[in-house]
């Protein structure tokens, strides 16, 4: 599965969730869905905006981890 490490990057950069949400033009509720790994997909435009704001690469935010139960 793909894990979203947005919390870690936000802490590293000292940026709050609200600030990021406002900067990239999404709601706090949607940012929360992203942070809690409940999202089904992420748009390139969103990823681009996050990377721009946090000055990082997609690999810093997204990480592949082996599924424990083997489910896709």
């Amino acid at each position, binding site marked *: 599965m793909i894990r979203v490490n947005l919390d870690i990057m936000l802490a590293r950069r000292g940026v709050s969730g609200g600030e990021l949400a406002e900067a990239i033009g999404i709601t706090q509720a*949607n940012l929360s869905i992203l942070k809690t790994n409940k999202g*089904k*997909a*992420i*748009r390139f435009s969103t990823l681009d905006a996050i990377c721009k704001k946090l000055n990082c690469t997609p690999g810093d935010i997204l990480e592949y981890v082996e599924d424990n139960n083997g489910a896709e």
Partner: protein
Amino acid sequence: MTLKTLSKITRALLYALMALVAALMAALFISADVRTFMENEYGAAGSTVLFYAMLLVCGGIALWILIELAAVLKTVESDPFVERNAAAFMRMGIAAEAAGLVFFVKCFFMFTIMTAVCALVMILSGLFALTLGMVFRRAVEYKRENELTI
């Protein structure tokens, strides 16, 4: 014409149709003229009970379908792609197939051209509603996925 107006007009027509169906069902018992017409002109004299039972079952099914349709139309203005609507179309489809089956069986006992036409129309409407139900179910899935795409 806006979606809101269209939905309101359609719902008003559906409510009028519901009242008409209910009135016709009541007329079977209240009006002597209707009874005479059914017995003399529509071939119901041989098996009145069976004929009335068939009409009541089909009338009930028609009312149920109209109520479900009105409920679906109510959601058109806000958010029609919900699981409830998909299930409603499936229920309507099954109900229409049941009515079609009643008309089909009637063809073997009291055949009229209109009975055969009704059977065909109900079976086709049922299949159409079932297809719509499946399409709605897929739309609900797409919508859910889209909502979770950030």
